[in-house]
Every structure is written in C-alpha cells, then in structure tokens.
C-alpha cells in the first residue's frame, strides 16, 4: 500500500474539511470555520428543479466556491483539472499519489460505500482527499467518516465520472503553493462582506433571505406535489437531514459561521464581531428548532395545513432574523 503521511480529521462539511486538511498538510495553520467564513460559505437557496426529486434547499454557497474564494482571498494557488477521458483522469490521480501529493477529488456521494447505506444518495458535489493506493483500492480521507478508509478503484472511478447534474468530470485539486504571508484581516472582512451581499442583495428570487421566504411560502404546498402522506413525511423529515445530518456542523452551517465570527473577533480584536457570533449561535438554535419540529411532525404524519403553516411561520421568522443580522454585519464591515 502506498500511503501518504496525512492527518485525517473529521469535519463538519466535506468541501471545507477537504480544503482545510490540504492547507494544514501544506503547512498553513487554519481552522475549518475560518476557511468557511473567509470563503463566504454561509448561504441559503431554495430550488424547485427537475435536477432534484423534490423541492430542496441549500445552506451554503455553490460547491467549488470554498476553494475558489480561498484562492482569491488568501492567495493560495491550486492545481485544478477536469477530465473528458476517465482513463486519463485515473492515470493523473495515480501519478499524483505516487508523487506523494494528497489530492482532493469531486465525487458522487452515492458511491462512498463505507457510509451507511441509508445515507447514500446521488449528490455529485461531495469532496474527499485521496491519500494512498494499492493494487485494488484507493486510501481516502473523507471528512464525514471517522477514520481513513479504502474504496475500490472501480468504485472511485464510477464516483468521479458519474454524469448528470453538476457532474464531477473527474475533477481533482490540490494546493500548488501557499503564500508566505497572509493578510487575515482583509480576507475576513472580504469574506463577511460577500456573505452579507449574497444573503441580502443577490438579485435572484430564490436565494438568500428571499430564498427563505420562498421556502416558507412553498412548503405549505408540498402536499400537492407529494405522492402520498409517507412521501410528504419523508420530504419534511429531510429538512432535518439537510440542516443537521448532511455535514453542516448543525443548524444549517449557522453554528459553523458563529464559530468563524468568534475566531474572527479574536484575530481582529473586534468585540462587535464577538457579539455577532453570539447572535448567530442563537439563530442556529432557532434553525435547530425547525429541524426537530420537522422531524417530529414527519414521524407523526402530522402534516395538515395547520402544522405546515406553523413550519412556514418558523422559517419566515428566521428570514426576518437573518435579514436583520446580515444587515448589521454588513454595516460592521463597510
């Protein structure tokens, strides 16, 4: 087994976890919340698209943006490549491993067969680090899994070259060079500014605060598009999965962002950011109440208009709260 010396750590989210681990491996001391915050990871978007089996929402920025924003704001240069030819994609990955370069790969999460079967769904935007290889398997470090684990070569190839929405196309990346000096203050402020803009001002009706309001409006109509009560229950309970279980650090990344703000306050010696981090932690608690509410209502099949109206009101209240929060945060970093 060819195994690169690499420290495996679990992380809240796959992309921030993967990027953080690679930066740490390269010698840059940075935490997952700091990567998330500088890269303006906090977000909200509500989607009704044929690419999803049912309306869904995301609570973080576009996949790939973490790496791109870290590159822009910290000056880290990444090797990045997609492949048309799976054989070439496999060969390049093998060469990188033989050169002892831990390499991040974009994959379809469904093929990560070390995860519990009930968790495995087709999502083309999962990220793992590949850190070794033997005759039949790759050694991988997946932020969602407690330890380093193996994945059959054929399985990783399938995962890297699954087609469909946001197809990975064998995408690989790793940091080529790290800057000798980093202006964290500037990077943090730019990260916060962009996050606030995304939440408040992006001129798209289904993202940011507008996305939350759309979610609040449309969730009341979910019974009309469900096959039956069990299907509706499944989709309502998925709200809990999307907020808590699908690698968000809890409460749809709100706790992770609160941690970033606390760390940013320390780095910048800025008391006002510390207060904002406390506010974000409380906002996270309110999202977590939504998670529990959805899980309980779904389990009890208590999904009449009254209960869904209650859920809608809770989401709208979060929209009000986050509108005020990000307006205040934007003013702080003007």
């Amino acid at each position, binding site marked *: 087994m060819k195994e690169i010396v690499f420290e495996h750590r*679990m*992380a*809240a989210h796959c992309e921030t976890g993967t990027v953080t681990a690679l930066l740490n491996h390269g010698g840059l001391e940075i935490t*997952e*919340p700091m990567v998330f915050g500088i890269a303006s990871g906090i977000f909200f978007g509500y989607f009704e*698209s*044929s*690419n*999803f*089996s049912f309306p869904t929402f995301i609570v973080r920025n576009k996949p790939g943006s973490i790496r791109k924003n870290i590159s822009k704001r910290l000056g880290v240069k990444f090797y990045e490549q997609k492949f048309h030819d799976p054989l070439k994609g496999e060969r390049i990955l093998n060469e990188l491993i033989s050169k002892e370069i831990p390499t991040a790969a974009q994959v379809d999460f*469904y*093929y990560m067969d070390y995860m*519990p079967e*009930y*968790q495995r*769904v*087709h999502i083309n935007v999962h990220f793992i680090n590949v850190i070794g290889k033997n005759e039949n398997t790759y050694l991988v470090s997946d*932020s*969602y899994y*407690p330890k380093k684990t193996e994945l059959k070569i054929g399985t990783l190839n*399938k995962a890297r070259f*699954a*087609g*469909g*929405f946001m*197809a990975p196309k064998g995408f690989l990346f790793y940091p080529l060079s790290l800057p000798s000096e980093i202006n964290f203050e500037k990077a943090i402020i730019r990260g916060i500014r962009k996050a606030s803009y995304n939440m408040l001002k992006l001129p798209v009706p289904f993202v940011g605060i507008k996305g939350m309001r759309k979610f609040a409006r449309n969730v009341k109509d979910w019974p009309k598009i469900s096959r039956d009560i*069990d*299907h509706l*229950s*499944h989709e309502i*309970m998925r709200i*809990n*999965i999307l907020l*808590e*279980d699908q*690698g968000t*650090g*809890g*409460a749809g990344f709100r*706790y*992770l962002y*609160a*941690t970033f703000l*606390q760390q940013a306050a320390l780095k910048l010696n800025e008391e006002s950011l510390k207060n904002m*981090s406390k506010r974000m*932690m409380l906002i*996270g*608690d309110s999202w*977590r109440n939504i998670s*529990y509410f959805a*899980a309980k209502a*779904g*389990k009890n099949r208590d999904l009449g208009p009254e209960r869904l109206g209650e859920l809608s009101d809770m989401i709208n209240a979060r929209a009000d709260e986050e509108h005020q929060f990000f307006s205040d945060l934007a003013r702080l970093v003007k």
Partner: protein
Amino acid sequence: MKEKDLYVDFKAQQAVYYVEKSDESYGPVVSGSFLSKYYLDDFYEKMNKQEQALREKLKAGEISPVYYYCIVREFGEGDLASRVGVSVRKLRKHFKMENFTKMKLSLLKKYADAFDIPVTNMFHLVMTRQEFTEKLRIVDSETKNPFFVISKIEAKGE
C-alpha cells in the same frame, strides 16, 4: 447550542457539530445523528412501503423498471436524463412499459449504469425470504461482456 445538549449515542453515523463549550468558546465535537438514532425505523418502514407499492405497479405493467429505480434511487428527472444522455421528455416516455419495450439495449445499459445495477436487473428483481436477508447476500460480478452478469448467492461475511 451548548455542548451538553448535543450528545447522541449513535456510533453508526457520527458527524461533527459546532457547539458552545463550557468556557464559552465555540468549537467542534463529534456526536451521533439525532434523526438516525430516533427515526431510522420510520425511514425504513416508509421506504419498504414505497418499494412494495412500486413493485406491485411494476408487476402489473403500470410502470417501467426505469420509473421504479428512478423513484427508489431518489433521482431528479433532469439529473437522471443527463446521466443517461436523453431529454427529460424522452425519460418520461421510458417510465411507461409500452415505450420501455422499444428501447435499445445500449440505452438500457446506460440506465442500468446510472442505477448502479447489472443490466439484467432491469428485467427481474431477486429477493429472498425475510429470514434469509440477514444471512445471505447476492453478489453480482461483471464480466468482459457488458450484457452478461454472473450473480452468486453467498453467505454474509464470506
């Protein structure tokens, strides 16, 4: 969230959560999944009911295997169509048996690949009695011939 309010004992599914620690600092801790710990039975019950209902429709010829696997695997229609290389309109046609039977074998293989099953499973479902499901498993082995698969019934743990 306070650290003391988080912990869920569920080893099968661990994740990182960010919490407020006793010294008021925020940081990561590992805990089990709340939803999986308390509601996994409900999830399986729903999935089994759904699968049975779809299987009955499949047996009656009311839906095609493409529709069956699309729902069971929770694919979005656009995503699945893109993986297979057909339009959503065409995909919806393939949801019906009368169009499924006219499909080329090469296209059927693309569907099977997207569903991560042997192409032969587009024509049959292999099942075991409940008492055997914990003891036996079916292992499908691909051959050089992409349209020929060998399925072996093995004892679990072999």
